C-alpha cells in the first residue's frame, strides 16, 4: 500500500468544509446524545426504549427511518432490529416514523474523504469515523449512497438488543427471576419454567426503568433473520396491488393540483392567459407559483388538462440553450489549469512519461440523464393556521420539513412529514421542487389538502439530471503492460449545488463527484493520474444512481480496456495484474471463473468484455457476452461478481445487482436527455426507453464475503455495466464506442 501515500491529500473533497465545521463546533456537540423523538408524545402505557422501537399493549412498532424506494430498505431495517429484539418482523407495524435528528445517517459521508475505500489505514479509518460528526450536526437524515445497511448494521441491532435486555429487566422485576436466567423468543420473555411474558405486557413497566445499554451483539452464526433468504415484508402488498404509494393516498376533502413550470428550469413566467382553463369542468382555481402556473381541480386528469390549456409565455432559461452549447462549455474546461478542481491521484510522473513515444489518446463522453422513476413526483400538503402536514415519498425528510418551516413560518414541531413508500427514485427524490410547489399551492387554499401529481412530461422535463461529462484519456504501454494512465474529467460540480438547495447555502471547495469512480480505483499503474475539471452548473443536476461513478466507471474502465488491448495483454489478466487490493482481485478472478473467461474473442460476430469499478466500497466486476446479429447487438449473458463483506439477504442482493446492471446497461444503450431552446427534449418513455424484457440477458450474480466492511448494494452494479457492454461490443465488432448512449453509433436487437 506504499504507493497510496503518494496520493495527494492536500484537498479534502466535499467533506472538507464539514470536517472544519465539526472541529469548530467541538466534540461536545458531536458527542451530545440526541433526544429520542418517540418520547415526546408517548402515552402512559407505551415504551420507546430506543428511537427505533415503540411498544404498547396493542403491539410492536419498528421505526425504519431510511426511505424505501424499492431497494428493500424497510425490510432490511426491520430485520436488523428484529434479529436482536427476538420478534417476527412480519407481525410488527413497520413505519418510517416522523423524521428527526436522531435518525441522521452517520455513514453517508464516509466515502467522501480523500482516501479510496480500499484504504483501511488508521488515518483513513479515523477520518471516516469523524465524518459521522458533520452528518450528525447537520441532522442528515438522508437515504442514499448505498449506506442504509452499513449505517444500520450495528445501530439497528444495538437498538434491538437494548430493547430486549430492558424488557428482560422489566420481566425480572416482575417475576423475581434474575435477568440472566431469562430468555426471549418471538416477542416474549421466557421464564425458566417456560411461562411467557409478552413484550406488550411489559411495555409500561419497561418505560419506567433505566434502559440496559451494556449489551452484546450476537455473532452471525446465531442469526435467525439475517444472512439467509427471506421474503421481503412488502412483497405480498406489492404483488397484489395493495401497496399504497404517495400517489395513491387520499385525504378527506382533498383537491387535485397540476403544475406547469418553466421548461427552462429556474426561469420565471412572463405572462399567462388562463381564461379557457378557468372555465373547464372541475377547475377550482388557477394561480401563479414560483416559475410556473398551478391549477387546482377536483381530479388529476382535469387538473392536467386545464394546465395544458393555459397559454404561458416563459422567461428565457438561465443556461445555454442547446446540448451542443452545454457540452462546449464542459469541453472547454478539460485540461485547462484554471478550471482544475482537484487531482486526487497522481503517481509516478505522467508528464514525463507522455513527453515522447507512442501516446494513446481518446475522448469519452456521457450524456445528461433523467431519473424517470415509474411513480412521478407527487405530494399531498395540508396547511392550516397551526400546522403543516406533508405526505410524500422523499429521501430527505428533514430538509423537506425545514423548507416547509421557512415557507409557512410555522415552528418545526408543527410541521409533519409523513414519508411514503416510493415507486422508484434512483436519486430523483433527493430533490423536492414538487413538494415546495405543493406547499405553495396549499398555502393559497389553507384548510384544504392539495395533492400535486406531476405528469410524466412535467417530471422528465424538470428533473435534476445526472450531469453530462467529458473525459480525455491518454496513456502509454510498454512490454505488454499498461505503463501510463492519465484521465482528465470535466463536469459541473454536483454536490455543492445540491447542499445549497438543501441547506440554503452552498459549500465551497472541490467536488469529489467529478472523479468518483475514476480516482479511487484499486490499481497500481506506474504513472497514474486522474484530474477533475469543473464546468459551471448549467442545467439542473443532482445525484443519479451511483452518482459520480455512473459516468466515471465508463471513462476509467474504457480507457483501461483500450490501453490493455493496445499492450496486447488479456483484458482480465492485466486488470488482475494491475490490481493492488486483494478483495478486488478475488472479485475479478471470480467473474473470470463463472464466465469461463478465455479471452475476449468468442468467434465471428461474438465477443465478451470485462469491466471493473469499485464504488461505495464495493468491488464489482462484470463480464458481458454479446453477438452482432442482423438486427443489431444482442446481449447474450452477463456475469457479475461483487463483495459486500457480509451478505444479509442473498435474494434481495441478487435483485439489487440485477437492477443496477440493467439500469446501467439500459441507459448506456439508448438514453440521453438533450436540450433545445433551454428545454429537455425527452419528455416521456417513448424517447427514453431503457431496456425492455426482450432485450434483457440472463444475469448470473456471485457475492463474495472477503471484504472487511459491510456495504450496501443498491448502486455498485451500475458503474461497470456500461463499460463491460462497450468492451464486449468492441470484442465482437472491432468498433470502439466512446460516447454514450451506444445506439447513436450502433443498433441493438
Amino acid at each position, binding site marked *: 500500500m506504499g504507493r497510496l501515500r503518494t496520493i495527494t491529500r492536500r484537498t479534502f473533497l466535499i467533506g472538507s468544509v464539514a470536517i472544519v465545521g465539526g472541529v469548530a463546533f467541538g466534540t461536545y456537540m458531536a458527542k451530545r446524545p440526541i433526544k429520542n423523538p418517540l418520547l415526546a408524545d408517548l402515552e402512559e402505557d407505551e415504551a420507546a426504549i430506543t428511537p427505533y422501537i415503540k411498544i404498547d399493549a396493542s403491539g410492536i412498532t419498528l421505526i425504519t427511518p431510511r426511505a424505501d424506494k424499492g431497494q428493500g430498505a424497510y425490510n432490511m431495517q426491520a430485520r436488523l432490529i428484529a434479529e436482536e429484539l427476538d420478534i417476527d418482523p412480519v407481525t410488527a407495524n413497520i413505519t418510517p416514523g416522523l423524521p428527526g435528528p436522531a435518525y441522521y445517517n452517520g455513514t453517508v459521508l464516509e466515502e467522501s474523504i480523500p482516501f479510496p475505500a480500499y484504504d483501511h489505514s488508521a488515518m483513513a479509518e479515523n477520518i471516516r469515523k469523524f465524518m459521522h460528526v458533520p452528518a450528525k450536526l447537520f441532522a442528515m437524515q438522508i437515504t442514499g449512497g448505498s449506506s442504509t445497511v452499513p449505517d444500520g448494521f450495528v445501530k439497528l441491532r444495538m437498538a434491538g438488543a437494548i430493547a430486549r435486555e430492558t424488557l428482560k429487566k422489566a420481566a425480572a422485576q416482575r417475576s423475581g427471576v434474575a435477568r440472566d436466567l431469562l430468555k426471549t423468543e418471538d416477542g416474549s420473555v421466557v421464564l425458566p419454567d417456560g411461562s411467557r411474558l409478552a413484550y406488550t405486557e411489559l411495555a409500561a413497566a419497561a418505560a419506567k426503568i433505566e434502559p440496559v445499554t451494556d449489551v452484546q451483539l450476537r455473532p452471525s452464526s446465531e442469526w435467525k433473520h439475517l444472512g439467509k433468504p427471506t421474503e421481503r415484508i412488502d412483497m405480498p402488498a406489492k404483488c397484489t396491488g*395493495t401497496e399504497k404509494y404517495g400517489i395513491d393516498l387520499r385525504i378527506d376533502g382533498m383537491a387535485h393540483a397540476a403544475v406547469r413550470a418553466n421548461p427552462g428550469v429556474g426561469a420565471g413566467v412572463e405572462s399567462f392567459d388562463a381564461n379557457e382553463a378557468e372555465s373547464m369542468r372541475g377547475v377550482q382555481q388557477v394561480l401563479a407559483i414560483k416559475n410556473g402556473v398551478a391549477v387546482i381541480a377536483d381530479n388529476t386528469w382535469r387538473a392536467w388538462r386545464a394546465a395544458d390549456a393555459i397559454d404561458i409565455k416563459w422567461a428565457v432559461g438561465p443556461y445555454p440553450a442547446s446540448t451542443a452549447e452545454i457540452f462546449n462549455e464542459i469541453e472547454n474546461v478539460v485540461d485547462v489549469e484554471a478550471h482544475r478542481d482537484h487531482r486526487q491521484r497522481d503517481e509516478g510522473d505522467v508528464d514525463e512519461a507522455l513527453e515522447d513515444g507512442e501516446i494513446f489518446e481518446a475522448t469519452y463522453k456521457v450524456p445528461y440523464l433523467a431519473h424517470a422513476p415509474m411513480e412521478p413526483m407527487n405530494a399531498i400538503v395540508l396547511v392550516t393556521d397551526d400546522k403543516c402536514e406533508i405526505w410524500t415519498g422523499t429521501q430527505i425528510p428533514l430538509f423537506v420539513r425545514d423548507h416547509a418551516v421557512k415557507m409557512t413560518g410555522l415552528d418545526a414541531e408543527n410541521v409533519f412529514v409523513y414519508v411514503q413508500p416510493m415507486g422508484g427514485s434512483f436519486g430523483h427524490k433527493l430533490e423536492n421542487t414538487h413538494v415546495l410547489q405543493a406547499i405553495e399551492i396549499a398555502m393559497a387554499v389553507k384548510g384544504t389538502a392539495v395533492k400535486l401529481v406531476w405528469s410524466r412530461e412535467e417530471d422528465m422535463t424538470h428533473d435534476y439530471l445526472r450531469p453530462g461529462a467529458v473525459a480525455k484519456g491518454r496513456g502509454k504501454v510498454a512490454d505488454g503492460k499498461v505503463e501510463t494512465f492519465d484521465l482528465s474529467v470535466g463536469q459541473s460540480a454536483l454536490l455543492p449545488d445540491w447542499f445549497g438547495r438543501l441547506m440554503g447555502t452552498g459549500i465551497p471547495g472541490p467536488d469529489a463527484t467529478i472523479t468518483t469512480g475514476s480516482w479511487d480505483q484499486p490499481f497500481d499503474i506506474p504513472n497514474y493520474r486522474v484530474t477533475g475539471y469543473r464546468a459551471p452548473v448549467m442545467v439542473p443536476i443532482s445525484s443519479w444512481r451511483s452518482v459520480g461513478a455512473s459516468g466515471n466507471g465508463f471513462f476509467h474502465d474504457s480507457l483501461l480496456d483500450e490501453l490493455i488491448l493496445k499492450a496486447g495483454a488479456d483484458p482480465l489478466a492485466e486488470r488482475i495484474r494491475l490490481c493492488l487490493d486483494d478483495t478486488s482481485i478475488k472479485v475479478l478472478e471470480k467473474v473470470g471463473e463463472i464466465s469461463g473467461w478465455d479471452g475476449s474473442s468468442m468467434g465471428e460476430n461474438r465477443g465478451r468484455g470485462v469491466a471493473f469499478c469499485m464504488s461505495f466500497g464495493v468491488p464489482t466486476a462484470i463480464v458481458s457476452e454479446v453477438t452482432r446479429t442482423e438486427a443489431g447487438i444482442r446481449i447474450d449473458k452477463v456475469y457479475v461478481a461483487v463483495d459486500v463483506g457480509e451478505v444479509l439477504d442473498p435474494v434481495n442482493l441478487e435483485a439489487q445487482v440485477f437492477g443496477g446492471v440493467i439500469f446501467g446497461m439500459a441507459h448506456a444503450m439508448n438514453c440521453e436527455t438533450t436540450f433545445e431552446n433551454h428545454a429537455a427534449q425527452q419528455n416521456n418513455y417513448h424517447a427514453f426507453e431503457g431496456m425492455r424484457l426482450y432485450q434483457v440477458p440472463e444475469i448470473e450474480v456471485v457475492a463474495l464475503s472477503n471484504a472487511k466492511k459491510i456495504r450496501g448494494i443498491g448502486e455498485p452494479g451500475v458503474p461497470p455495466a456500461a463499460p463491460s457492454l462497450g468492451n464486449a461490443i468492441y470484442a465482437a465488432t472491432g468498433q470502439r464506442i466512446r460516447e454514450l448512449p451506444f445506439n447513436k453509433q450502433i443498433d441493438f436487437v
Partner: protein
Amino acid sequence: MEITVNDESYTVDVEPEMPLLWVLRDELGITGPKYGCGIAQCGACTVHVNGYAVRSCQLAIGDLGDSKVSTIEGLGSPESLHIIQKTWIEHQVAQCGYCQSGQMMQAASLLSTNPDPSDDQIDAAMSGNLCRCGTYPRIRSAIKAAAKKIQGS
C-alpha cells in the same frame, strides 16, 4: 354512466373522454392500476377489459360500452392469491413494485390465452411493460414457473 369493475357496478358522472385509468383512480378510489406515462408506453395502468390486457390510460370511458373491467384488485387479494400473484411472491419479483400491477395483469392475460408460452411469446407479450428497477429476469422466471403450475394443475 354505468361501469362494471371487478364484478361491481358503479355510476360515474364524468366526461366521456376521461381515460378509464383516472375514473378508476380518482373517481372510484381503485388505485392498483398505476399512472406511469399516459401514452401507452409503460403498461403500469394495464387492466383487463373483457379478459384482455388493455392500457387504461388510453381507453376513454365513453368507449367502454358495457365491457367488463377487472383490475389487479379483482385478480386476487393477499388472502386469496391468483396463481400469478402467488408465483410473483415466491420469486420475490417486486422491487419498488409500482409497475407490477400492470406486469401481472399482462402476464395473467398472456397465460389465460396461452398457458404454455415460449420464450419468444413471453418476450412479445411482456415487452410493452416497462420496469425501471430491473425486475425483468424475475418476471421472466415467474411467468415460466406459473405456466408450469398451470400445466400441472
